[in-house]
């Protein structure tokens, strides 16, 4: 090994020693710098592109005046209701699938049919069925979250250690109690993974649905906020809406990571 390669090796190792948060923060600062430089150097039209500074101003003003707060609340509520219903239905389906052969076949069939279908593809039909209102959006979110949760749950159930189920049977648990007391806790890591995936699907669906939907004003969510800003040609506000969505996405990730650390990591079912 030459001196030079040792030197780079040491340098690389030293860089690795920086905490992840600091590394990512530095990278973020660089990215924002590039963004600002792009706007300053190319003099791109303010109608097409907002600078980080303009975005930050629109973001601050939007939150201070409540113009971003209420759409965020609406979007989160829609998402919560949609994912909640989706998770509930998924649980019922999966339990049925565990209890009976027909249930299992049904779940496999429905998953095969609906899982590849993007949630948004259902929206036009949902608008016909439910009308132009929130129910249509919630239905669309629920439909796009049932299947990832169901898949994750049934994988979780299927991969439960046979020893555990055998013990459960030996001590004489009924099939339902076997599900609630043995399978569900054992499948928790998969369940959390499923909800996490469903949340991501639902998040995409709710924003897209609001963009199509176009109910303006106080009842609108973040997608609507962005669309309105576009119609009024307020590009910094479009960017502020996008930043809000990105920050919420990061917040979800942190919440799920925390949830995992508190439950399955602490209980030794999984490592970080």
């Amino acid at each position, binding site marked *: 090994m030459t001196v030079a390669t040792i030197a780079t090796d040491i340098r690389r190792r030293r860089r690795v020693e920086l905490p992840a948060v600091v590394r990512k923060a530095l990278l973020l600062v660089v990215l924002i710098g590039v963004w600002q430089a792009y706007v300053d150097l190319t003099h791109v039209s303010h*109608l097409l592109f907002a600078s980080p500074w303009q975005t930050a101003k629109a973001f601050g003003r939007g939150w201070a005046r409540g113009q971003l707060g209420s759409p965020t609340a609406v979007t989160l509520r829609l998402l919560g209701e949609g994912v909640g219903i989706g998770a509930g239905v998924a649980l019922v389906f999966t339990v049925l699938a565990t209890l009976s052969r027909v249930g299992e076949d049904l779940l496999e069939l429905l998953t095969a049919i609906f899982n590849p279908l993007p949630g948004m593809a259902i929206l036009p039909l949902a608008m016909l069925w439910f009308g*132009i209102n929130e129910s249509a959006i919630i239905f669309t979110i629920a439909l796009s979250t049932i299947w990832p949760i169901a898949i994750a749950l049934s994988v979780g159930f299927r991969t439960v250690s046979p020893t555990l189920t055998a013990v459960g049977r030996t001590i004489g648990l009924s099939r339902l109690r076997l599900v609630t007391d043995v399978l569900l806790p054992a499948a928790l890591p998969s369940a959390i993974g499923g909800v996490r995936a469903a949340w991501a699907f639902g998040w995409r669906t709710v924003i897209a649905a609001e963009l199509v939907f176009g109910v*303006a004003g*106080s009842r609108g969510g973040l997608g609507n906020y962005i669309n309105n800003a576009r119609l009024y*040609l307020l590009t910094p506000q479009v960017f502020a809406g996008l930043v809000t969505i990105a920050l919420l996405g990061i917040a979800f990730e942190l919440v799920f990571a925390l949830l995992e650390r508190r439950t399955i990591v602490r209980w030794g079912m999984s490592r970080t």
Partner: protein
Amino acid sequence: MRRTPRWLSVIAVALVVAAFAGVTATAQPNAIPAPGKVTIAYQPGIGYAPLIVLKQQKALEKQFPNTSFNWQVLGSGAAITNGMISGDIQIGAGGVGPLIVGWAQGVDAKIVAPLSWGDLWLMAKDPAIKTIADLKGKKIAMPGPTSIQAVVLRRMAQLRLGDAHALDSDIVSMDHPIAMQALLSGQIDAHLTAAPYQLQEKVHGAHIVARSYQYFGGHSFVDAWMSQKLYDQYPEFAKAFYNDVAGAIALINKNPLQVSKLLSQDSDGNPTWRQYKQWLAASGLKFTTQPDGLMRFASFMNRIGMVSKVPSSWKDLVLPPVYGTKGS
């Protein structure tokens, strides 16, 4: 083998091209410089009839054989403004709402040829909806929150409910053909629209709750827009376009029968020309290149906070070919 020097062949090619260009130039001594490609976008509705006449007569295509014209129908004026910003659309057409919003935000789009005036009706199907006040909490469809219909709705809300934004959260963005279906099938409660949709809705049992002329007087409905940049580059092309639109408008006013047939032809025979003839006669539309009410709309939009500034004159919103009309 002897090779011809490359520069010699370049010169030869250049000479041939120059000679050819000279021939074509002499063949068309009066050719007006025009862009190579022009996309013209308008919206559904009979207010755009002058453009449809040009499209069906291929007037522009014949006049500018070296330009490829592309016609598009989009659902809202905001979509067309967006297309003009991104450079996909060279000539757009729409109501004064998106035009003034665009102007205030610095979009390079001005009126190159006004198309029509129009009385816009607020339609409802439920007989219980009689006045503007009955619309609170209901769903009111229109192309978007910046459309001319939305401006009209805010004026109605201001005068009847005391707050221009009282009905803002009831606006549902839909293009007119879809909104008409939604109104007639009961998915929405009201539709602030234009001809021919308001006429069709009336035939199918909807009634008029309010009309825009009651609130703004007679006013411009839709206009064709072009960027100042394109105008500066091709002023004669813009002037020719204005003259063509004026010609189409003269034809609509002189020979509605022939125009009805052209409109029907544009929609592949359905609706029929008889239907179009009836609509042209009854629509509350007036085809003219005189823009009217631009300043009334702009100052109202400014007063209620839709735009942050007002043009100093209606001429700020139009290009030179329109200067001669007695606009306002």
